[in-house]
């Protein structure tokens, strides 16, 4: 097995790209990443995307991207895994480059959401839930997020204001994050009193709808190694019951727990070695359940750890260092690659105002549905 390094990275701002199509966004991010890597022709192109067919009436994104980039001949395809599409695309690319099947790969995460009316965006983000038993009845992913939030608050006696600490952290970091969708700080009261979306979820508990694309180039060529170089020390994916309410313990994210356990083992480290974590903070309670499943907090203590400063940019384990899904934004299939680009910038020391001091090891955590699928990556500075 070969060592896989991140040779280059690129991204677009997350938000309203009224004048850009899904392909325009993908090409912008890919061009930046290829230029950064100094690679003209990768051996492989993989796209992470959840619902281009629904949002843009466009499939065959792999061939479309290869054509647009004038990379005819390069094998290309799309990977879909709901909210984890981006990181799952990277997971596949990592295994190809690690094995030597490809020596380099361009991985693009992209999603176009703002062309959709709000009720259509709600349908799009719910496409990963059961068509017959969830979508048919008009039950959206937000509603499921609300139900698990209520269970979480009841079971662990988490208060409204404690829950609000996750969006507060995300938005604080997003203020200085140039590519973030919402560069605005919010207070605990702002979150706790924002508009109800699906009780007890409020507007500021929920990751927003936005367009965006991010890309990285992977390489196994030691000649490409920059100083400092960043390796993918581990890539691990797992799954759990598609419906969270069919799990024995509804408040344990087992897909995440399995993925992080495997990733730490592959990287040969313990969770205490993690300097920062880009987590899947799609809803405040999901952020709490995620830090708990990742082993960064004890069960039920995630929100209180957030309140006590553990996850602040200068805290013990900073999370969502560029704003997370909540502040940077959540262009669904692109999110997993945004996390990788952000972790890469942290580890090479290019994070400016968002820099985690002396960051050597970063973790990214991305999920599809309510932890139906989870992907964990560990990135490490190696020079």
């Amino acid at each position, binding site marked *: 097995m070969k060592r896989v390094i991140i040779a280059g990275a690129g991204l677009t701002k997350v938000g309203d790209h009224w004048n850009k199509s899904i392909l325009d966004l993908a090409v912008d991010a890919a061009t930046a990443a290829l230029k950064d890597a100094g690679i003209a022709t990768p051996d492989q192109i993989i796209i992470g995307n959840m619902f281009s067919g629904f949002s843009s009436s466009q499939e065959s994104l792999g061939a479309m991207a290869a054509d647009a980039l004038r990379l005819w001949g390069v094998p290309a395809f799309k990977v879909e895994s709901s909210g984890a599409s981006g990181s799952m695309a990277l997971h596949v690319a990592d295994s190809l480059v690690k094995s030597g099947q490809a020596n380099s790969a361009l991985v693009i995460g992209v999603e176009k959401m703002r062309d959709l*009316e*709000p*009720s*259509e965006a*709600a*349908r799009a983000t*719910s496409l990963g839930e*059961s*068509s*017959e*038993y*969830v*979508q*048919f*009845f*008009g*039950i*959206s992913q*937000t*509603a*499921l997020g*609300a*139900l*698990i939030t*209520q*269970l979480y608050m*009841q079971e662990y006696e988490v208060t409204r204001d404690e829950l609000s600490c996750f969006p507060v952290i995300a938005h604080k970091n997003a203020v200085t994050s140039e590519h973030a969708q919402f560069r605005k700080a919010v207070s605990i009261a702002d979150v706790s009193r924002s508009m*109800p*979306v*699906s*009780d*007890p*979820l409020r507007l500021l508990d929920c990751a927003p709808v936005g367009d965006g694309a991010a890309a990285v180039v992977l390489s196994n060529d030691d000649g490409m190694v920059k100083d400092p170089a960043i390796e993918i020390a581990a890539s691990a994916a797992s799954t759990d*019951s598609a*419906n969270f*309410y*069919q799990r024995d313990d509804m408040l344990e994210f087992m897909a995440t727990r399995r993925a992080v356990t495997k990733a730490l083992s592959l990287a040969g480290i313990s969770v205490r070695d993690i300097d920062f974590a880009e987590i899947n903070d799609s809803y405040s309670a999901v952020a709490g359940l995620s830090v708990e499943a990742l082993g960064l907090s004890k069960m039920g203590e995630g929100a209180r750890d957030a309140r006590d400063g553990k996850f602040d940019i200068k805290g013990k384990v900073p999370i969502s260092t560029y704003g997370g899904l909540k502040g940077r934004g959540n262009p669904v299939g692109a999110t997993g690659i945004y996390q990788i680009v952000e972790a890469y910038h942290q580890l090479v020391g290019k994070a400016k105002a968002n820099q985690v001091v002396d960051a050597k090891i970063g973790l990214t955590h991305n999920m599809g549905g309510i932890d139906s699928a989870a992907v964990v990556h560990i990135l490490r500075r190696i020079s």
Partner: protein
Amino acid sequence: MAVSYWRERDRYYRILGSKCQNCSAEFFPPLYRCRKCGSDKLSDHEMPQEGQILAYTLLRDPMTGFEDHDPMPIALIELNNGVRIVAQLADTPIDQITVGSKVRAVFRRVRVNGPNGQIFYGYKFAIKNEKVNLTR
């Protein structure tokens, strides 16, 4: 959607799930392998019509086709056999919904395919009112 609806009609009309012939565990929706013991010997099995609310929400951000359900009350329900189901609540004033409320299944219109389209029916749940029993 008409064909997939027809295919699922017994699931939607009678809450027809699965029972494991090996370990007797019950499930809804129906499935292919028993979640408990792994057996693939499963038979159709009707779920009990009653249960209680474990959690609920009022969805104010409806999906296309449900714009007239704003807010839409949705509950996570534990049926009397322990099977959990997520369903819309019907016939229930919003201020009467509480965690622990006893509920019963009702047969209701779920969605309509446009002004002249097909009407789709299925289960919803209503808070049990001991005084008036509208079922059966």
